[in-house]
């Protein structure tokens, strides 16, 4: 395979855009700091998700804070600059109650949990950007490296001064202007160390600490400068600092001349190379035309933002840096941008030897359901969600918490970015590392489906939806340190193949993403590799936010439907994990039937036929029923015999199978005929009713009740584990 990225990721998007033809809504993909799609005729939408894993392992607070303010700059530095509208965050940690001995240099998972949560809290809240979607995954292998995914969406006018806002071009003679914070030694080698496994010499000083307020002041200024047409191009200073930002922008002109001694420093004593590559935070680089330079600099001064003229973009063909007038670096642009030879990675797929366990039917289904609800991967994350301002900007229409007591788990978030329109943005995600131990192909497929399922359940349109992939892998390069490199590389290839297959099948273009490849810990003989993990983020549109649907049951008497067939697919499930098994039957996504179902769900939502809609994921039907019921405050009477499933499938498998693409609906009785009409010919089963009595009752097998439990017990089991975090 010649380049996984170009073959599967860029390739999928090319294919999807070809199929969308005149309905293509992509504006700028894979070339800028973030992807850009249309929102409506006047506005475009920008989205980017980043990881900040290694820094968060060493300094959880600083690492995570910088993760969020760093990805904010991606939105600001895309096209001509966009206004940030929301953040997302997804974390993968080891259990905060981890009690085994920790290998040297690792921080306790609880310390990482608390530091990361606080870092994202300060980064997001102080920046005035609502954090509206996220989740936390737990697996003790994330003790080796925690994963911290931070995303940001932004909005910008389609046209600025008559030009498309998602395009920009530095011109020969434009000044190189750096704005925002000053340069210090912080973050030198940040990009290098985060591309290594965590080892004895990993430097804490490589972690930058961001300051959200300096950045907030700069963004206020830059949006004004953008609207006044004071610059030609903008990008952020992230990994690699000035060397990377100026170097990238100079591709437009073919060279630059940068005077490193003109850069403002936090303190004296930096050497020229340190100035060039420092990753000190909250800095943007702009190309300012000479006739606008004075106005740009004086507006910055007035708004208390530092702006420094560091040189000019040229057509010399050289990456030219000077210090006190003397050349300290002069490289040809061609070498800089094309000079990296392609890596050759050997890979061989040998399916792991996994088998289905022989599991006895539970003696008490209510107890196992409560145990599942209390698992870290399923339980309530309310204590974290409430620490993030999810309502600033007054656009959050479906909030992360929903239901009669404002504490049920929303599938996705809906955000209304414009006060004069009811059009909304829907954002969701899928992440399924527990399936990776069986087959990363299906892990990827399930993550895509989970993201789309959550998105559709809330009202996102299948006609206007894009994806972002963020790969976090363990080192896949065969070596002495990584003797299983062939397998790990093959896992990577298989995930990429699924990404292509399912994005094309669902018609979802990929607009941006990132990979992080060395998520291992190695000191001495001890090596911890994370499970291969892909975050699949989904962003798209709902034409009218007032048509959004939440997951909580609404009224007694409503009918309960299950969409999608339940198979014997418990491999990698939470049920098996609870019993100490992995299993072999990993869920397999059927994109054809799923796509038809999701489109039909969209039609039902547009006609206002759905009272609630909840996705089935970790813990399957049992967990989804419990969540929908206690979020709404009404009980349900459910009959497992009504499921579309193989006849012989036992009650515990019906309840806890994690078959994909399934959705739980409640529908007012007067809409029964319309809903059944819409879904005729598809898998759609009437499985029960919402009842006044606050109790979940489930009949299975021979019609006898296998579960009859008060909602308060279920809710308490679900809320207890992380309540005090």
């Amino acid at each position, binding site marked *: 395979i010649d380049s996984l990225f170009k073959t599967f990721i860029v390739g999928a998007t090319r294919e999807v855009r070809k199929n969308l033809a005149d309905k293509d809504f992509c504006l700028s993909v894979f070339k800028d700091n973030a992807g850009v799609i249309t929102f409506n005729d006047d506005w475009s939408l920008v989205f980017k998700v980043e990881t900040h894993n290694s820094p968060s392992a060493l300094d959880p607070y600083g690492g995570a804070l910088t993760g969020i303010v760093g990805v904010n700059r991606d939105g600001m530095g895309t096209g001509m600059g966009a206004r940030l509208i929301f953040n997302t965050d997804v974390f993968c940690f080891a259990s905060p109650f981890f009690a085994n001995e920790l290998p040297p240099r690792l921080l306790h998972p609880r310390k990482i949990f608390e530091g990361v949560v606080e870092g994202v*809290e300060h980064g997001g*809240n*102080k*920046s*005035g950007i609502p954090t509206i979607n996220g989740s936390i995954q737990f697996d003790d292998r994330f003790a080796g490296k925690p994963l911290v995914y931070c995303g940001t969406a932004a909005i910008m006018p389609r046209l600025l001064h008559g030009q498309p806002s998602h395009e920009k071009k530095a011109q020969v003679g434009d000044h190189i202007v750096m704005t925002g914070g000053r340069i210090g030694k912080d973050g030198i080698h940040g990009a290098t160390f985060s591309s290594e496994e965590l080892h004895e010499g990993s430097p804490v000083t490589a972690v930058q600490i961001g*300051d*959200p*307020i300096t950045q*907030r*002041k700069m963004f*206020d200024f830059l949006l004004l400068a953008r609207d006044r047409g004071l610059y030609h191009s903008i990008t952020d200073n992230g990994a690699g600092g000035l060397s990377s930002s100026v170097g990238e922008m100079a591709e437009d002109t073919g060279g630059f001349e940068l005077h490193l001694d003109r850069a403002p420093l936090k303190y004296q004593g930096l050497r020229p190379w340190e100035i060039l590559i420092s990753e000190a935070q909250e800095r943007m680089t702009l190309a300012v035309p000479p006739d606008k330079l004075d106005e740009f600099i004086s507006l910055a001064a*007035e*708004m*208390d933002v530092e702006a420094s003229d560091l040189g000019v973009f040229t057509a010399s063909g050289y990456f030219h840096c000077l210090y006190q007038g003397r050349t300290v670096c002069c490289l040809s642009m061609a070498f800089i941008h094309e000079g990296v030879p392609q890596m050759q990675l050997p890979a061989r797929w040998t399916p792991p030897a996994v088998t289905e366990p022989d599991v006895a039917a539970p003696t008490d289904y209510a107890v196992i359901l409560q145990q599942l609800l209390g698992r870290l991967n399923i339980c309530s994350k309310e204590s974290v*969600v*409430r*620490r*993030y*301002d*999810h*309502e*600033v*900007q*007054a656009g*959050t*229409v*479906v*909030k992360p*918490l*929903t*239901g*009669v007591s*404002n504490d049920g788990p929303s599938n996705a978030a809906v955000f*209304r970015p414009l*006060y004069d329109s009811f059009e909304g943005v829907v954002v969701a995600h899928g992440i399924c590392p527990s399936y990776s131990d069986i087959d990363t192909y299906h892990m990827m497929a399930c993550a895509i489906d989970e993201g789309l399922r959550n998105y559709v359940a809330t009202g996102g349109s299948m006609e206007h939806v894009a994806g972002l992939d963020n790969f976090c892998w363990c080192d896949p390069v065969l070596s002495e340190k990584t003797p299983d490199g062939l397998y790990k590389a093959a896992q990577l290839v298989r995930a990429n193949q699924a990404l292509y297959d399912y994005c094309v099948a669902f018609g979802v273009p990929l607009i941006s993403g990132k990979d992080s490849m060395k998520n291992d810990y190695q000191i001495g003989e001890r090596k911890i590799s994370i499970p291969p993990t892909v975050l699949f983020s989904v962003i798209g549109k709902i034409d009218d*936010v*007032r048509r*959004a*649907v*939440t997951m*909580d049951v*609404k009224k007694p008497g409503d009918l309960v439907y299950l969409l999608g067939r339940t198979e014997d697919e418990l491999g990698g499930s939470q049920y098996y994990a609870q019993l100490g098994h992995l299993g072999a039957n990993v869920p397999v996504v059927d994109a054809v039937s799923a796509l038809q179902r999701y489109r039909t769900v969209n039609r039902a939502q547009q006609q206002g036929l759905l009272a609630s809609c909840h996705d089935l994921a970790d813990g399957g039907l049992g967990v989804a029923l419990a969540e929908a019921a206690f979020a*709404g405050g009404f009980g349900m009477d459910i009959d497992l015999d009504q499921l579309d499933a193989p006849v012989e499938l036992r009650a515990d498998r019906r309840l806890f199978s994690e078959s994909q693409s399934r959705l739980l609906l409640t529908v007012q009785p007067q809409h029964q005929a319309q809903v059944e009409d819409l879904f005729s010919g598809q898998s759609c089963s009437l499985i029960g009713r919402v009842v006044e009595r606050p109790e979940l009752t489930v009949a299975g097998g021979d019609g006898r009740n296998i579960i009859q439990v008060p909602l308060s017990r279920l809710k308490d089991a679900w809320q207890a584990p992380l309540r005090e975090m």
Partner: protein
Amino acid sequence: MAADVRAIVISGFGTNCEREVAHACRQAGAQTDIVHISALLTGRVRLDDYHFLNLAGGFLDGDDLGSAKAGANRWMHARVAGRQESLADDLRRFVAAGKLVMGVCNGFQLLVQMGVLPSVDGNIRQSCSLTFNDRGRFENRWCALQVNSASPCVYTRGLTDLYLPIRHGEGKFVTDAPATLARLEDDQLIVVRYADSAGLPTMSYPDNPNGSVAAIAGICDPTGRIFGLMPHPEAYLHRTHHPRWTREDLPEEGMGLRLYRNAVEFIATELL
């Protein structure tokens, strides 16, 4: 008539909620400008040209010295270019002219830090503060509020209760002395209190989310024209802002908008 009511919303240096506050003012019928504080400090825009000053939520200067402390110092001590006055002097003139000031969240913290609230007996001196929540962390949570109908507050006229979100880490209202609290109570300057499900003031978490004394969520000055509160009225302007809009029958217009409508109506009848 209402088009002549001019509202100003200050932005910059860490203010975050200026856009939605401006939207609320416009919905209520005021002609509204969002003005960066640097435009006031350079003298390009003057407070005198407006009737309704809005200090919006955010984290002025990161709240690094305590909520709004650095921001308060800027108001009180930074000189407006070309004049021997500070913004606080402008603000005093603004208040003396009987105009309206509302501070929400960080804006409330700012008014309290400057001593503009509660300013009993016309004393501009800090007597109250908003400090760290009892639980020691930031929280975003919708709260029921009881409105004191005996209060002179012009913003809450005709209201008995409110339901609004709080979003803060430093919202616990405290006073410098018991006498200050007694005075606030005697003069009916406590406008809104955190309430339980029965609608009564409460000290228990989470209904009282921060441990504020006397369950205080917001206070006004004796004229009722200066009002500060921790909950965010600009976060509930439309029914889709309500956390349960998908399950309850709610009026199209959100409760928070009433505060802005009352302000604009007051200006239209008393000041124009």
